């Protein structure tokens, strides 16, 4: 249970970072922390105490495997996370070109 809760705490740290920080790069880091928290949660879900890698070998009797499905999910989630992070960094760079700052309080052309 403690491990699961620590994943939630990590998620909340990321959320705090997104909500409070003023710098675009720090906000991106916050989103990345949130993604890692969920990935970690998935990996922990699949863990079995004393389990081995899920590879079927000859002569292995009654093996205890860790659940391989969450690992596959995490791989996919990491790739998706890479795509969104790349997108965020690319847009943050273009914003820097236009506004000359990473400070969200100064990036305010939209209103209403």
């Amino acid at each position, binding site marked *: 249970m403690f491990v699961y809760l620590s994943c939630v705490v990590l998620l909340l740290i990321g959320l705090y970072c997104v909500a409070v920080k003023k710098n675009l790069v720090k906000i991106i880091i916050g*989103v990345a922390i949130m993604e890692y928290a969920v990935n970690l*949660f998935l990996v922990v879900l699949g863990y079995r105490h004393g389990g081995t890698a899920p590879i079927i070998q000859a002569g292995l009797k009654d093996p205890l495997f860790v659940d391989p*499905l969450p690992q596959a999910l995490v791989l996919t*989630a990491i790739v998706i996370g890479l*795509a*969104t992070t790349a997108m965020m960094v690319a*847009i943050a760079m273009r*914003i820097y070109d236009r506004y000359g700052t990473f400070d969200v309080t100064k*990036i305010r052309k939209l209103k209403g």
Partner: protein
Amino acid sequence: MMNLLPTFVAAPLGAAFLMLLVSRISRKLADLLGNLCTFYLLAAAVALYFLRAPFQVVTYQMGGWAAPIGINLVLDGLSQFLLLTVNLIAFLATLYSISYMERYTAKDKYYTLFMLMVAGMNGVVLTGDFFNLYVFLEIAAVASYALVAFGTEAEELEASFKYLILGTVASTFILFAIAVIYGLTGTLNMADAALAFPQGAAVARAFIITLFIMGFGMKSAMVPFHAWLPDAHPSAPAPISAMLSGVLIKALGVYAVVRILYNVLGMTPQLSYMLMVLGAVSMLVGVLLAIGQWDLKRLLAYHSISQIGYVILGIGLATPLGIMGGLFHLFNHALFKSLLFLNAGAIEYTIGTRDLKQMGGLSRKMPVTAATSLFASMSIAGIPPFNGFWSKLFIIIACVQAGRLWFALAAVIGSLLTLASFLKFQKYAFFEKIKQGFEGIKDVPLAMAFSMLALALLCLGIGIAYPYAAEYLVNPAVVAVGRGLGYSKTVLGGF
């Protein structure tokens, strides 16, 4: 018919990557490929209505693996209804793009992103697997983030960044909820998860629902989560605004909420009340914020929040008439809001501004735009016999029947305020005297006019033939939603 299902994802996905090759040869070929692909999707979505026996559930096993282990695509009434909505708007938006997108440089990249977005939405609507839903949702979302920033002006980048951060946070919540479901049930298949969901786990169930409402609420811009929409939707090019407001918030937000709450987790009175409150608040807050806007597309974007409120209110009622009204309004909103955004695009294309104060007297110079926008304004304001009137009437009657008089009153007030707001749009844009400098303008090119005319005629036609639309178009979806937790048996049982 079963083999038609994967092509809804495969065709736009293939077209997206072919587009970059084809556009090397000629820009015209990119136009042709984009439009052929969306035309095929629309034809296939219409054909499904004739091929599928009434109320039948069709499944397709990806790679031949059976359902709980493999990934399946599920076509029931609700999916079919959303497929038609998505691909109809997608076809008319690509047709409109042929002329409209000439102003931008990278038209091939625009089509690529557009196709990826369509593939993602079709995937979300068809899939029967939670993780698959997440992946398709992200494909559509990442494409839409890029499309919002497509003009790369300062405001567009700012809007896109805001949308991107909120959208990614929402997706993270959704993935977290999916992980919790996997931990509880040991399966990712929606139908299987509904069966395997443990009876006693009330806290976990509430936690999952909270995460899903936060995630999908953000995607569908219900009121406490709406902040990104009025920035993001106006910043995109007009056909993309039409796609985002017309279908993206519904396919990614409303559809997923309906599918998960009704068919997987099961609807309860508390949940129903929560959805109704969210819907009513969105309805009123959206329209109140819209009234003061002078930027035409921003005004329309606030109305999207308000109209999504109607859809959520109807669906939240959880009575057959309420669901019917909500889903019917979803379809109608896709028609008239896309049309309004295309109108806004036509005005911007012709006179180069979206500020209502600088317009005036356009009706004489732009007859097609003026007439179609009048149709759309009357539809959204709920004037009979246009389609918006009937769906709003269904929702209000359903509220009264369920004894929710305050919600019915809120819906009526929202509708009156919408009317006021669209009278303002019509007055400032099309009536009064024409402004100096606009004497020489002409109406938009043929392809753009065709898209707008088609949508306007659909608004009127569905309004006049509303009993048929309700019976043949929307009712299969209502039956699919009303099946509730029986969804699992029909999907896994094969019929």
